[in-house]
């Protein structure tokens, strides 16, 4: 625990075109650590979905990736509007993304389901008007 490796990123809510920088950096770092490609793929997709959500729906936030001995933990924390109905938001196809975001290829309502699909555990803490923190873990063993 004490020697866990931590990567921290500020996710800029204003700059939509550069969204994905944190996930891309994490992918590179995990590669350097020599982790299996399939683990890297799951971590980076789950993180990218969460990072994009923070940009689109919450005006940015903080991303931390912690490399533990037995798992990789991704913590995404924002001070956005919060999620009113988590089980609705988790449904495939549910999206409140505006048209300009949809024209970029987002807004399928598949991001949160993908985060669940690619991780071994996912926890959402959210409060309306306060923010959302999503914690995901991908096991290494």
């Amino acid at each position, binding site marked *: 625990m004490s020697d866990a490796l931590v990567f921290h990123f500020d996710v800029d809510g204003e700059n939509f*075109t550069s969204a994905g920088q944190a996930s891309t950096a994490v*992918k590179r770092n995990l590669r350097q650590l020599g982790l299996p490609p399939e683990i890297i*793929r799951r971590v*980076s997709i789950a993180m990218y979905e969460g990072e994009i959500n923070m940009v689109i729906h919450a005006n940015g936030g903080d991303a931390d990736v912690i490399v533990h001995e037995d798992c990789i933990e991704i913590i995404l924390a924002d001070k956005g509007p919060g999620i009113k109905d988590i089980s609705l938001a988790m449904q495939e196809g549910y999206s409140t993304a505006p048209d300009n975001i949809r024209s970029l*290829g*987002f807004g*399928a309502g*598949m*991001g949160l389901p*993908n985060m669940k699909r690619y991780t071994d555990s996912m926890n959402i803490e959210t409060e309306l008007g306060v923010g959302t923190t999503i914690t995901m873990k991908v096991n290494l063993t």
Partner: protein
Amino acid sequence: MTVEGLLEHGFSPVAMPDGSRTIDGVYIGDLLSWVMGRAQMDNAWITIMSNNNVIAVASLADTSCVILAEGVELSQDLKDLAMAKDINVLSSPKSAYEIAVTLSGLLA
């Protein structure tokens, strides 16, 4: 079948930093979260989308190449980004369906 092997079959190179990558299967889609959820590693990804998120998704989903259908083009900035991120991009004037039919024959 390698990515650069496609050049002999009517596909044009847009960015080819890693042409020796092997193509294993195909995914077609323009909604990025569907692609991330369903495309497999090493798939060729056929799309008509051409913004910078396409490059990011191809990188994270680890597809072997992006094939731009219907003659869709990439700006010079995005070509540079694809090269920098090690993402192969090809283009074709054909529809996604016609491309898939071609690939189906080549991958058989």
